[in-house]
């Protein structure tokens, strides 16, 4: 079966000052699947993910060359407004960063800045997205409470819902369970499995078991380079590169 690729990265190079972080990355990310980017700490996983929604723009020392095609459009060389590109991708960070406002407004914020202000519309959307992350029943009576009062696990689901509310078709998740307890982590992983029907999910993780549980497609990185990529069954079942093999077996140097 041929996968349709949502994101295609071609010859992506990124350096901070003179230090190369990403070296000649070529990778493809299939649509409506979970693609796991894995590799040891400091290999450039997070930087690769952040270059997908151009958060690397924040750094004046970052020099980026190459192309990242999303739905055929090269987002590194486009006249399209950066905020519109970013809205296509929801971000889930290593720990939850709820907005300093109440639970309701955390979801409504993204809608409001896109110009949706009618209260009835917002009410409906807020409920819809809170239900989608199974948070509605827990918070429906306390929507006016500050988001900071939720547990960390609930906050991360709120951040997921908030990201979904702006209508992306890609979810970028950077070790999204690293700050969570096992049960909250399971909840997030479960959501990913549901969401991949409609969303392309890019997950950065260094937890091998999590990668094995979730991945449909794997990109294995080492020292800023892509060592091996392909369907999860191939990478986990029959890795071609020695380095991948030793990483999967836990012998790594």
């Amino acid at each position, binding site marked *: 079966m041929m996968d349709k690729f949502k994101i295609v990265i071609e010859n992506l190079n990124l350096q901070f000052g003179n230090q190369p972080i990403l070296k000649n990355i070529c990778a493809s990310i299939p649509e409506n699947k979970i693609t796991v980017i894995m590799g040891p700490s400091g290999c450039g996983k997070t930087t690769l993910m*952040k270059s997908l*929604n151009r*958060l690397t723009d*924040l*750094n*004046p*020392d970052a020099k980026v060359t190459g192309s990242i095609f999303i739905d055929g459009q090269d987002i590194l060389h486009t006249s399209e407004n950066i*905020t*519109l590109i*970013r*809205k296509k*991708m*929801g*971000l889930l*960070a*290593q*720990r939850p*960063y*709820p*907005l*300093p*406002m*109440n639970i309701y407004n955390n979801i409504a*914020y*993204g809608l409001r*800045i*896109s110009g949706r202000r009618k209260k009835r519309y917002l009410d409906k959307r807020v409920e819809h997205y809170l239900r989608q992350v199974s948070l509605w029943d827990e918070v429906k009576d306390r929507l006016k409470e*500050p*988001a*900071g009062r939720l547990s960390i696990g609930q906050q991360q689901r709120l*951040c997921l819902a*908030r*990201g979904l509310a*702006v209508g992306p078709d890609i979810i*970028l998740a950077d070790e999204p369970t690293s700050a969570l307890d096992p049960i909250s982590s399971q909840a997030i992983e479960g959501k990913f499995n549901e969401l991949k029907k409609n969303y392309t999910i890019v997950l950065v993780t260094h937890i091998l078991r999590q990668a094995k549980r979730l991945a449909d497609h794997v990109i294995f990185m080492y020292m800023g380079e892509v060592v091996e990529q392909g369907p999860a069954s191939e990478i986990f079942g029959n890795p071609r590169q020695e380095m991948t093999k030793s990483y999967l077996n836990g012998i790594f140097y």
Partner: protein
Amino acid sequence: MIQKKEFEEKFFRVLMFFSTLIIAAALIFIIFSVLYKGLPSISWEMLTQVPEGGFYFGREGGILNAIVGSLYLSTGATVMSFLVGLPLALYMNVHLVRYGKLVNTIRFILDLLWGVPSIVYGAFGFAVMTYFGIRVSLLAGTITVTLFVIPIMVRAMDEILKSVPVGLLESSLSLGSTRAETAYKVFFRQCLPGLSTAVLLSFGRAIGDAASILFTAGFTDYIPTSPDQPVATLPLSIFFQLSSPIPQVQERAYASAVVLVIIILVTSILSRMFSHRYQKNKINF
């Protein structure tokens, strides 16, 4: 070894205790001595009247000109500093967050400006005024105090905004916010308690300073009715009354000091109350 550590522990505990004691004692001593000397000569008349002829020789009148003048001047300076300072502080921490060198240079310049004595601001303001042929006035004084307060306010805001994690900025941008929206809708809200404290701290500095307004705001026995008139201020009023050889007038100087201290205490307490009120939505990262 362990005895040495125990001794160290004890030594530093005693040291800290005495440092705390000295500070607390100094504060209490200052406030009580001002109150002790000033309270007896505070009267309703003094708070509600402007000086009559011969006030500085012990005649009738009050310091309403200085109270109102100080409030005009410091409120004006605080508002103007806020209008310039908040955008700068947000710009440093939202737009320039990864421009380490540039931001540190700005911080260094602001710290230098913070360290410049206020009399130098006064002299600078005076030089500019003479160049343009402007007389001492409420407006000239307000602008000079604004220049003096901006570095204080910006650095106080900056210290608060600096503590916002980059992750919150990235999250906000990922939702499709522009940087301006991130600055004014996310950073501003997250830091509201601290920012309100910064504003009131600046107000306190503005109202307490005498040197920067000496040559720029002048002094008058009347309440100014337009910005091009000179204005009286509490610190200068205290200075003039205290320089008088007449004991009765000197006592009034202490009474004026009581008024100044009370205004500053009230703003500090208000700033605490505001911080608590806006603390609600702040996320503790």
